């Protein structure tokens, strides 16, 4: 019997999972950005002492998970499931980390939406009483993403004004059925939306309709008004994609502008750091949430937020074959409420 579903795409949890702890590790460039002081660890060298960028990214995931577990005053053996993914072919960053961590593992691919995808599924596992301790994680690395999706690092090409900068970083969220901390009360699972955008240099424009669709559906399913939230924050739409999402929602009759932001827009100082339209990548919404947003929630500066990580579900192959960029966004409501 279905008892927790609201509307078409939303779940309201009966036993809202508690965010026991989080961890965020970022690269040097992110460590020079406006949110630097909120990150748990800033690595100085993007190779992170490893032999390749891929191994470095994997180590970011591993260390983020270890840090979150330690902070939750638990051991790795206490964690019943690990859910996560990254941008690399066959999820090598996360899988190789999972091999070292030895936690039962589900690998997920949702492109840059992986933070809220993993949080959604981890919450379902806990609310469904299948486990007490679940970790959700994701990562991205500028250098691994560049070589897989674009050009070699040293190639002297020019970036479009709408191009975004892949965040180097990993975030991990430890969810628990008991304990203290902000809780996840609702999730809205997005549909894949494709408005026919083919320009891989403007992923904000490709993903904005998916974000708008998920947010509009969430508001309809739950009956919440935008102002019920202190913040509605998308994953990596960037400077221009954010404006498009606000515009699309306005046309749907939702005035979100005052409470709306985007992780990709917050993480860098675009002018000083030359990041064009802003940050992107799985790590973008992961570290902004695990570092900055969780701090704001814990200090009661924010009490109810909607995190909407956004993913562009294309590959270099689909792009070279002239395919458009189908996109997805998943929304997660995080609140400060006292649960006994």
């Amino acid at each position, binding site marked *: 019997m279905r008892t927790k579903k609201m509307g078409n795409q939303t779940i309201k949890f009966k036993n809202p999972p508690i965010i026991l702890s989080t961890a965020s590790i970022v690269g040097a460039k992110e460590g020079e950005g406006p949110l630097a002081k909120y990150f748990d660890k800033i690595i100085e060298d993007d190779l992170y002492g490893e032999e390749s960028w891929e191994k470095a990214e994997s180590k970011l995931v591993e260390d983020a998970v270890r840090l979150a577990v330690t902070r939750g005053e638990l051991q790795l053996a206490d964690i019943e499931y690990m859910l996560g993914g990254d941008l690399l072919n066959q999820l090598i960053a996360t899988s190789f980390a999972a091999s070292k961590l030895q936690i039962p593992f589900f690998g997920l691919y949702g492109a840059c939406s992986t933070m809220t995808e993993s949080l959604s599924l981890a919450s379902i596992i806990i609310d469904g009483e299948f486990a007490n301790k679940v970790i959700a994680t994701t990562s991205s690395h500028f250098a691994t993403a560049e070589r897989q999706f674009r050009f070699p690092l*040293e190639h*002297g090409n020019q970036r479009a004004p709408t191009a975004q900068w892949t965040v180097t970083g990993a975030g991990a969220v430890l969810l628990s059925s008991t304990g203290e901390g902000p809780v996840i009360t609702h999730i809205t699972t997005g549909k894949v939306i494709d408005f026919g955008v083919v320009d891989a240099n403007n992923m904000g424009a490709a993903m904005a309709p998916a974000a708008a669709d998920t947010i509009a559906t969430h508001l309809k399913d739950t009956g919440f008004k935008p102002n019920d939230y202190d913040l509605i924050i998308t994953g990596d739409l960037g400077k221009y994609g954010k404006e*498009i999402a606000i515009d699309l929602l306005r046309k749907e009759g939702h005035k979100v502008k005052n409470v709306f932001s985007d992780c990709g827009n917050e993480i860098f100082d675009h002018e000083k750091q030359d990041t064009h339209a802003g940050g992107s990548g799985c790590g973008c919404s992961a570290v902004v949430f695990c570092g900055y947003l969780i701090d704001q929630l814990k200090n009661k500066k924010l009490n109810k937020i909607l995190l909407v990580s956004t993913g562009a579900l294309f590959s270099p192959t689909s792009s070279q074959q002239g395919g458009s960029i189908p996109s997805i966004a998943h929304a997660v409501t995080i609140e400060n409420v006292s649960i006994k």
Partner: protein
Amino acid sequence: MIKKVESNKKYEEYLKKTQPKPNYFKNCLWAFIVGGLICTFAQIVHDLFEKYLNMEHVEATSATVMTMIFIGATLTGLGVYDKIGKRAGAGSIIPITGFANAIVAPAMEFKREGIIFGVGAKMFILAGPILVHGILASVIVGFIHYFLKR
């Protein structure tokens, strides 16, 4: 839900109106200045070869090309060429230094995948298309030239 009010066509038009365009004038100016500087520098090198090493014109040209490739490759290795390219665009891609950059950059990038499948296979990932289509074009032009001359 959003889909009902926005068709793909309408969205494309909307993006055309709202999305920022590259500053073509500024980009062209940068390309002109940097590309011009690279070519002027090569011309100076060429003249010096002729003057001080007593090279023939054609001989000096080959020596200049080799020198410029060496400089392009070195600047790529030092991590400077991508910074020039970011501003100059076509201005630093079109000259032969850009060709050197297009070969050295992937060679550096893929050396971790080994000498054979990394450096060997990926070295021409960017320059390959230029070679293929460049050679094809030269053959076509050669034919045209041959038949026009007759």
